[in-house]
C-alpha cells in the first residue's frame, strides 16, 4: 500500500520534474530572443508611513531611517532583486553602466529613489574592481530620473490628474461603500479609542491593504485603470526598439555614443526600470486584467519582455514577487508569448491617447466650453463697434463709387447720343 503510494508520488515527481524542466527549458531558450525589458517594482521593506498618538511603539526613533523610509532589509531585498535581474538579463546589459542601455525612472519619493539605487547596485555588482572610483566601494552611481509628484504623468498620477480625487469621492459616495462605512462604525470607534486619532472613514483606516481588498472584493476596479500611461510608454518604447534595430541580436551590448543630454527620451535602451509603490504595481496588474487581488509585497515586480522569434515580435509578461519565484502572466485572450500588435489592441481600452484630456474632471470640460462661448460673445461685442464703423466707411465708399459710375454713365449717355447722332448723319 505504502509502496504503491510511494511509487505514485515518485511517478508524479518525475512527471512534475519533466514538466517543470520543459517549462524551464522553454523559458531559458526564449530569453535569447529578448530585446527589450521593462520592469516595474514596488520599493523594498519600509518603516510605517506614520504613527498614531496612542499606538504602541509609536516613536519614530525606533526606525533608524525614520518613518516611511526603507529599512536595512528593504535595501537588501532590492539589492537581491537587482542581482536577479543581472542573472536573467546579463545578455542585455554590460557589466558597467552604459547610458544607452538602461533607463531608470522612479516616483519622487525617498523610498522608491533609494530602492532604485540599491537595486542598481545589485545589478552592477560584478563591476571590475579596477574601475571602482573608491577602493572600498563596489558601487558606482547610475542616474535615477524622477519628476516632482505634482507633475508626475507616468508613475504616480494622483497629484497631477484632477480626475483621480474626484473618482475617490465618487467611490466614497457610492451606496455600497457607504453601507460598508456604516458597517465599519464599530471598528472606527475602536480604532479611534485605541489610536487616539479620529477614524471615521475607510480611508482613514491605516490598513490600506484592507481598504483596497474590500473594494476589490466588491467588484470595484482600483483607480488608474481608466488609463495606464506606463503601459502606453512600454508599448511605444518596444515599437521604437523594433523599428530602430534591423540586426537586433548584435545590438544588445553595442555601445552608442551619446551625450548626457535628453537621454531620457531614448527608447532604444534594452532595460527600463520603474521604481514605484504597491499601488503602482497593483494598478498596472489591474490594467492588464491579471490582478490577483493580493497587495503587492515589497519588491514585487512586473516584467515586460520584448521577444523576437523568427522575425516576429512578442511581449511576455512576468510577475516576480519573491526573489525565488516568477509567474508567467497570460493576458486574457492571448498566449503567454503575445504578439505585440495583439498585445496593444487588447490593451487599447487602457492606453491613453490624450492624457491631458482624459484626466479632465468631466464637469469641468463643460465649464470650459461655456467660458469659450462667453469669451467669443464678448469679443464679438467689442468688435461690433468697429464693425459698424467699417460698415459706415464702406457705405460711403460704395456711394462714392456709385456716384462716379452714375457720373460716367451720364457722360457716356451723352457721348452715345453724340455718336448716334453722327451715325444718323452718315446714313
Amino acid at each position: 500500500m505504502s509502496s504503491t503510494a510511494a511509487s505514485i508520488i515518485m511517478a508524479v515527481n518525475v512527471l512534475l520534474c519533466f514538466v517543470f524542466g520543459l517549462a524551464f527549458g522553454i523559458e531559458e531558450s526564449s530569453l535569447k530572443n529578448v530585446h527589450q525589458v521593462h520592469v516595474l517594482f514596488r520599493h523594498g521593506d519600509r518603516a510605517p508611513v506614520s504613527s498614531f498618538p496612542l499606538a504602541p511603539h509609536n516613536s519614530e526613533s525606533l526606525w533608524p531611517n525614520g518613518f516611511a523610509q526603507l529599512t536595512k532589509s528593504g535595501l537588501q531585498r532590492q539589492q537581491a532583486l537587482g542581482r536577479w535581474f543581472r542573472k536573467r538579463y546579463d545578455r542585455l546589459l554590460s557589466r558597467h553602466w552604459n547610458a544607452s542601455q538602461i533607463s531608470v525612472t522612479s516616483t519622487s519619493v525617498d523610498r522608491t529613489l533609494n530602492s532604485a539605487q540599491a537595486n542598481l547596485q545589485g545589478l552592477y555588482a560584478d563591476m571590475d574592481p579596477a574601475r571602482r572610483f573608491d577602493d572600498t566601494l563596489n558601487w558606482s552611481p547610475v542616474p535615477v530620473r524622477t519628476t516632482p509628484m505634482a507633475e508626475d504623468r507616468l508613475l504616480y498620477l494622483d497629484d497631477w490628474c484632477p480626475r483621480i480625487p474626484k473618482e475617490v469621492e465618487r467611490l466614497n459616495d457610492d451606496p455600497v461603500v457607504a453601507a460598508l462605512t456604516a458597517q465599519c462604525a464599530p471598528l472606527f470607534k475602536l480604532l479611534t479609542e485605541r489610536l487616539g486619532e479620529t477614524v471615521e472613514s475607510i480611508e482613514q483606516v491605516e490598513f490600506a491593504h484592507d481598504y483596497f481588498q474590500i473594494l476589490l472584493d466588491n467588484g470595484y476596479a482600483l483607480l488608474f485603470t481608466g488609463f495606464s500611461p506606463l503601459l502606453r510608454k512600454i508599448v511605444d518604447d518596444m515599437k521604437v526598439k523594433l523599428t530602430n534595430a534591423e540586426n537586433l541580436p548584435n545590438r544588445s551590448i553595442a555601445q552608442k555614443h551619446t551625450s548626457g543630454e535628453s537621454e531620457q527620451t531614448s527608447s532604444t535602451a534594452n532595460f527600463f526600470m520603474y521604481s514605484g509603490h504597491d499601488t503602482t504595481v497593483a494598478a498596472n496588474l489591474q490594467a492588464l486584467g491579471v490582478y490577483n487581488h493580493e497587495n503587492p509585497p515589497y519588491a514585487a515586480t512586473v516584467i515586460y519582455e520584448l521577444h523576437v522569434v523568427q522575425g516576429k515580435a512578442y511581449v511576455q509578461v512576468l510577475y516576480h514577487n519573491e526573489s525565488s519565484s516568477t509567474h508567467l502572466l497570460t493576458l486574457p485572450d492571448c498566449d503567454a508569448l503575445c504578439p505585440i500588435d495583439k498585445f496593444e489592441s487588447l490593451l487599447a481600452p487602457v492606453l491613453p491617447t490624450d492624457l491631458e484630456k482624459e484626466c479632465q474632471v468631466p464637469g469641468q470640460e463643460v465649464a470650459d466650453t461655456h467660458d469659450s462661448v462667453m469669451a467669443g460673445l464678448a469679443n464679438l461685442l467689442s468688435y461690433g463697434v468697429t464693425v459698424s464703423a467699417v460698415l459706415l466707411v464702406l457705405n460711403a465708399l460704395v456711394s462714392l463709387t456709385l456716384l462716379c459710375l452714375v457720373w460716367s454713365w451720364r457722360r457716356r449717355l451723352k457721348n452715345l447720343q453724340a455718336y448716334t447722332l453722327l451715325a444718323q448723319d452718315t446714313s
Partner: protein
Amino acid sequence: MLFHLFTLFLAASSCAGQILYDEYIYTPAAPTLQHVSVLFRHGARSPISTYALDPNSHPDVWPQGLGRLTREGLKQVYQLGRWLRERYSAVLSVAWRYNQVVVRSSAEDRELNSAAALSAGLYSEYFLRSPNERFDEEMPWSPVPVHSAPPKMDMEIDTADSCTRLQQIEAELHQDASVVKFLQSINSTRSILAAKLNQSFDTVQSLSFLYDTFRVELSFLYDTFKVEKENNLTLADWAEPLMPTLDLARRRDFQFLAVTHEQKVLSAGPLLQKIVNNMLLKHDIGLNAVNMSLFAVHDTNLAVQLITIDNYDNRVPDYATALLYELHRHEKNGTYFVKMYYHNNTYAQSPMRELKLTTCDTECLLDDFIYHVSEFMPKDLTEQCQILTPPPQPSFLDTNRTAVILIAPFFAIFVSAIIFAIASKIRKCCCLRNYELF
C-alpha cells in the same frame, strides 16, 4: 596682472590633472551654524561634444559616453562629500536622515551621479567604522535619495530649458554690437578654425549663426580641448596656440549668462529664493527644519549665482567647486546672519574664499541679506518666463475708434446728401433729355 598670472598658474595646474587629496585643509564651520545650502558643480567629465576630425573622438576614448563623469570626476565629488562631512559634522547625523539633508539635482546624468557620489562621501565614515550598520556588509555605502525634475519642468534649480524668456534674452544679447566686435577682434583664430574644422565662421550673415558660432563652437571647443588635456590626450597640433583666445570666448560666454537684471531674476532667482526659504524655515521652525540642502548644478548655474551676488571673478567654475550659503545664529544675542563661501575642491592650492555682498558685511544679518537679494526673486516665474512677443500693431480703427464713431455719422450724412443731390440732378438731366427726345 598678478591676478592673471594666478589664473594662468591655476590653468597650468589643471592641465597636469594632478589632484592632491592629502593637502586638504579642513575648516570646520563655526559652532553658530544652523543651516547650509551647498551648490556644487559635478566632477570631471568627458567632453560635451567632439568636433569633426578630432583625433580623440573615437568611442573607446570615452567609454562612459560624452558629457559624463569620469572615474576622476566621481572621486572629486566623493571627496567633496567627505570635506563637507568634516566641515559640517556638528549639524549632520552619522547616517542620512530625511529630515536633516535634502538632495536636489539638475536632471542630467553627470549631476545625478555627482549628487549620489557626494552623498556617499558625506556618510562614508560611519559605514567605514561600523560594518554592522551596512545593508551589504562588504561595502560602506547606503543610498541617499536624489530628487530632480525633467529639464523642461525644472523651475527650481536650472531654468535654462524650462524658461523660454531666458533663451530669448540670451539670443537677443548675442546679437549685441559688442559680440560682433568681439568676434571681429578674434578673426585670425576664427579663420584658422574655419580652415581646420572645415566649417565656415564668417560667410553667413545671419546673426543667429554668430550666436551659435560664439557659444557652441568657440566656448565648447575650448572645453573640449581643456578636457582632452586634462586626460593627457594629444590635441590636434593647431589647437594649442588657439587656447588663450578660446578661453576668452568661453569667459565671455559665461558673462553673457547674467548681464541684465531680468536674466539674474530668471536664472539665479529661483534657486536664491529656495535658499532664502530654507533659511527662513530654519529661522522659524528651528530643529525640525533641514540642516543641509545640497544642489547638484552646472558650471553655468554656479556662475550665474556668483554674478548675481556680485562675487564672480570671471573664472569659469571648476569641477566639484561649491558655493556655500551658511545661516548662523549669534550665540549671545540670538540674531541670525548669513555667511557665504566659495570652495574649490579640485585644486587644493586655492584656499576657501569668503564671499560678501557689496552692500553688506561678511556676516550679513538675515533680514539685510533677504533685503539685498530680494530684487532678484521672481514674483511669478511661470508668468515671467513667457516669451515676450511684440504687442500686435493696433489697427487704425482700434486706435481712433472714438474719432471714427464721431465722424462716421457726419460723413454718412454728407455722402448721402451728395448722393441725393446728384441723384436729383441726374433725374433732372434725364427728364430734360426725355423732354428733348420727345
